């Protein structure tokens, strides 16, 4: 049997048999070389309670070349592209070692959620947010976890004793700018609707220049 196939099959089986870990690897279709990995967001982080899915592509020369991974679930994190899910992590590039496995790599992704590396950003806008205002960044990350990863949202977090920011700024949480929301609200749309649309359009940072006002209004009218 092909060495790559043997190794991947064993990795999938080992992961299934390991009852202690919370990492899952599933087939997407018949191919054992295109998989879906998933894991819970780590406790004590803005990703707590979320369920994160990762697209896994196993290259021809695996395990001698690194596995290709990107987030399927949208994640608000300095080292993960908020638009494409692309991940900036050394072991997926030159620090890859053939002894690493799909499971150990997914565990590394899980721990990447615990320890962002804003000096080596994948998403410059998010990294800027992280460095300038950590608490505002965390609010947005919690919000994204709730919206995209099925997280519990800010309420449960508050129950854990955090007295911080009782009056949450919805706009900041969504990672948007107040001026942008005000601008479209002034056109007569409902504030919550504006926030929803701008969030869906990823109306942030450099993206703002790419998205015309007409496009936003079009979405608002839907």
């Amino acid at each position, binding site marked *: 049997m092909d*060495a790559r196939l*043997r*190794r991947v099959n*064993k990795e999938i089986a080992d992961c299934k048999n390991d009852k202690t870990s919370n990492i899952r690897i599933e087939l997407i279709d018949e191919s054992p070389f295109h998989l879906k990995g998933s894991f819970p967001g780590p406790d004590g982080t803005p990703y707590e309670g979320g369920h994160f899915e990762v697209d896994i592509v196993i290259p021809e*020369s695996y*395990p*001698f*070349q690194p596995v290709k991974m990107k987030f399927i679930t949208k994640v608000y994190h300095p080292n993960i592209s908020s638009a494409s899910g692309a991940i900036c992590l050394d*072991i997926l590039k030159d*620090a890859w*070692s*053939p*002894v*690493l*496995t799909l*499971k*150990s790599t997914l*565990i590394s992704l899980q721990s990447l959620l615990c320890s962002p590396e804003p000096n080596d950003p994948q998403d410059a806008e998010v990294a800027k947010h992280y460095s300038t205002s950590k608490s505002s960044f965390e609010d947005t990350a919690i919000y994204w976890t709730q919206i995209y990863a099925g997280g519990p949202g800010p309420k449960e977090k508050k129950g854990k004793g955090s007295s911080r920011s009782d009056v949450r700024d919805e706009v900041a949480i969504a990672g948007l700018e107040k001026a942008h929301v005000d601008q479209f609200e002034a056109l007569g749309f409902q504030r919550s609707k504006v926030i929803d649309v701008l969030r869906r359009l990823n109306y942030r940072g450099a993206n703002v220049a790419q998205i015309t006002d007409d496009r936003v209004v079009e979405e608002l009218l839907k």
Partner: protein
Amino acid sequence: MSSDYEFSDDDGDYYDDEEMLDGTQEDDMDMDAFGEDFKVVPKGKHKAYEVEYDSLSQAAVEKLMKQDVDHICGIFGVDVSTANLLLRYIKWNKERLIEKYMDNPTTMLVAAGVIVPEASSQPAPAPIRTHSSTSSGFHIPKSLKPKVEEPFVCPICFDDDTSIQTLALDCEHTFCFGCWTAYVNSKIRDEGEHSIRCMAEGCALVAPDPFIRSILIPEPGAPKTWDRFQELLVRQFVACNNDLKFCPYPSCTNTVSCPSASSKASLATVVPTVSCGALREHMFCFGCPIESDHRPVVCGVARMWLKKCRDDSETANWIKSNTKECTNCQSTIEKNGGCNHMTCKKCKHEFCWVCMGPWSEHGTAWYSCNRFDEKTGVDARDAQSKSRASLERYLHYYNRWANHEQSAKLSLDLYAKTEKKMEDMQITSALTWIEVQFMKKAVEEVDKCRMTLKWTYAMAYYLAKGNQKDLFEDNQRDLEKAVEDLSELLESPIEAENIPTLRQQVTNKTVYVQKRNEIVLEDTANGFVEGRWKWNITVEGFDDPESD
């Protein structure tokens, strides 16, 4: 420290003597034979537009590398593999290596991946390692203890066959032979990587050459991978040395050494066109990424021009088109040779392909198709006509540039046609094969001159107005005219009775064209050395344009 050199002293002396003798003799000859009156370029001395360089084979570069390695071996008392890893790590900067190594050898050896760091000599266990000689808690030196305590399972392929052959670097991270082979091949072939680290996670040890060789040599098809590995090493060495450049042509492994063009400053005075020596076509610029001869214009201006052409390609696209309409009867005419003198098949109207003006105005009396009339620019009043004037100005130069590029491409056809003519001539006349070579020589010369002309338009576009530019364009015009004449001659029909005349004409014209080309190249090159050329735009290494 000299005892490690490759050549014995005897050999060295022998060659030195002979070379010295040769050199002296030649110098004397030159001095005696030619007095001050004769303007003959001394043998061995280059023309103003040529740069001195050497082409080196891969083996020759490997010899240079070996000299550095031997030098380091001699100073540090290390083996060849170690010296290699150290030099590759420090990017072949010997002085820096010596300084850092003298400061702290251990740090350097660890950084270069030669030895395992002292403090953490216990390698960090990799997440899924099923076999580890250090995790069992007791330490028995490898040599005393055969590895029998538990069956070996390769941590990569999970193979647990008892007969499996295993390998490890000094760190003792053990993997099966098959995995090592696949890994080394993948690193070299897929990644083009010459520094091959241990496969264990976080282990920074680098596989020395004998280790890689032992893996690759028994592999079928491995000599190829081993050769590729050698080439990667040479490429790294060349990339680390400003005096060297690897030939950019695919699958060529030659290197050019050109110390006189290794500094950025030198590129304001020389255009370092070099050839790797492997094939005649392997011509490229030592100073910039342009993979052809861009004389007479310097690298900075040539690159600026290419960028402008790329940026403005939309606007200028129509010019590239290979067909045009006759200005007289509007029927479509296709250009199929290098000559700019077009004759409409339908109405027999003669015109210039470049400016579309009647050919009669281009005749012998005055040929001004190369010079843009700057007055149109001066007359421009409002912003709109100014921008149109600037576009027209650009198109004037671009048009001529693109035309020569196009004509040079069509010269392949011209070659084929000429070859056919040469065959015909051997049949219809008494000329021998040798005697009809004048046609081939003429085609080659036209080709070469079109290359020069092409770049003169890039140069003229950026030259500041004034006497110098006028002189430059006079030379350009003379060459342009000569090339067109020769080009036209080559396309004229051949009849048996006019062959001797044609031969005479073509030969004369070829010599003349050669001379004109020489003048353009030589004068432009001298101008750079004398600092004569001024630009209408800021060019790196030159004075800023004078504001008028």
